[in-house]
């Protein structure tokens, strides 16, 4: 599945070391010039992580068009509460009709005022999807949650319980 990724999710996937989920769920990541520039300004380990994904053909540069820029410009600059990287990710996902990956709830909530968004997933959604499809187990979820907390990401305490309840429902519905 194609998905346009924002820097927030990219860095969180790296920090949590859960890139295997991208393989399990068969994601093909697309990144705009803004996101690539942010990765370029990031620490060495982030750059290396990008290079690894690129070598594996898991991430590609997706070019913005003038129409994308015009769509981005719909958000008035003096009221712009999100970055151009986040904005470009949402706009590109919309124009390609694909999923956007962004970990900033504030950004997602804000951009909906101006742009009709497709589905937006964050790292928690990716972990949940992998868990529901049994690619990862309880211990994996706990480990990812711990690493997210260690990198100052606020995650619900009862993440595993929430996922387990949903998995039960999912299994019952699909049995």
């Amino acid at each position, binding site marked *: 599945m194609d998905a346009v990724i924002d*820097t*927030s999710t990219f860095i969180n996937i790296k920090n949590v070391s859960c890139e295997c989920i991208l393989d399990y769920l068969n994601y093909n990541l697309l990144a705009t010039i803004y996101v690539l520039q942010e990765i370029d300004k990031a620490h060495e380990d982030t750059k290396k992580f990008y290079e690894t994904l690129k070598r594996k053909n898991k991430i590609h540069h997706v070019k913005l068009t003038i129409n*994308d820029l015009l769509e981005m410009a719909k958000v008035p*600059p003096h*009221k*712009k*509460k999100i970055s151009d990287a986040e904005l470009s990710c949402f706009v590109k996902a919309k124009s390609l009709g694909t999923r956007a990956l962004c970990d900033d709830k*504030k*950004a997602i909530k804000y951009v909906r005022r101006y742009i009709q968004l497709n589905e937006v997933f964050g790292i928690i959604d990716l972990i949940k999807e992998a868990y529901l499809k049994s690619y990862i187990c309880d211990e994996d979820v706990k480990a990812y949650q711990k690493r997210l907390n260690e990198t100052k990401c606020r995650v619900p305490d009862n993440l595993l319980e929430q996922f387990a309840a949903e998995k039960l429902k999912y299994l019952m519905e699909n049995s």
Partner: protein
Amino acid sequence: MMSFNFKLLGKKIRQARENMLIKKEEIAKALGCSVTEYDKIENGDINEIDGDAIVIISQILGRDFRYFISDEYSAVESQIRELFRQNGTLNKNDRIAIQQFIRLCEEKKNLEEIIGRRKGSPKDYSQYPFSTTSYKKQGIIAAYEERKRLGIKDEIPDIYNLLRQQNIHIFRRKLDDSNISGVYINHPYAGHCVLINYCEDIYRQNFSMAHEYCHVLFDSNNGQNVSYIDKNNSPLELRANYFARHFLLPNTALEKYKFNFMNTTIDQMISMIVFLSEKYKVNPQVVIYRLEEDNYISSKTKETLLSNLKIIKRNIQKVDAEKMELSKRIKNKFEVLIEKGISLEYLELIRAAYQGNYISFGKAMESLMIGFDDGKTLFELWDIYMEV
């Protein structure tokens, strides 16, 4: 594709590039094309261009891409053009620095609007009923009026903090041309914007700040001004210099300590000058000129003291007021940002905007012009979590 005016795009790019003294070759190289191909963009001889190319060009030219794709010219664009035309000796790096400073001021104004932060405005002295036509005296009168209006009792502990409360966007940044002390722009949207040349001499920067404040008070109708250390002869610069001297080192300061400069040795005078210099955070030259101005010393003594400047300066411990507010834990991290031109006030504004749920994490990093990982480290120092 929607109808798009490629001629206007090319014209705007050419104007901005020429203003910034950036060569076509530099942009062509960044785009990975030949100069001939790049020329077609500036001439509007194209009927398509990818968005990435516009983003790259905008970034090199220090503009928001929105300016290039809109059908309008911005008022500030012509103001910058005029500023660069008036100061033709500004080199490419300093033009880029000034352009980035303008973007920071606009961004700061946006953030203040977004979080609803309001401040008082500085007084307009251009219509003040002065009883004198002397620019020097006008500067002195305004200095005392302002000290009174702002409730300044004695020394000014942090001039930047004081004047930022007056709705002035103040940033400090190192410029290539060390003869430039400051830049003032009355921005059509952001309002009063002051750039202080971040040199090694902290007290010189304080003086430059007071000097630029005088331009804010008197010369906002002129739109923009670059102040040079070696070009102080115009009446407006003279007024600003006298304003700065009296604003930072008022008569009361000299009266208060009742120094008897007539019956002291040079060494004693030097230690008094060091004391005043440190307390009022001005360079010893300012103290010496003020002492002569108020007849505490003769012009001969002034010359003797000025010839001892090196010795005096060696004894002065200069402290940057803005950095004093930083705790040891975060000092190193923030110092790097401050030296890049980010102010502590601006940092706090971004923190408030993020913690108040007004802006996203990405926007905070974009406003700080730092990378995502560095931003995470910074937010960790502030103990701020990202909600995912």
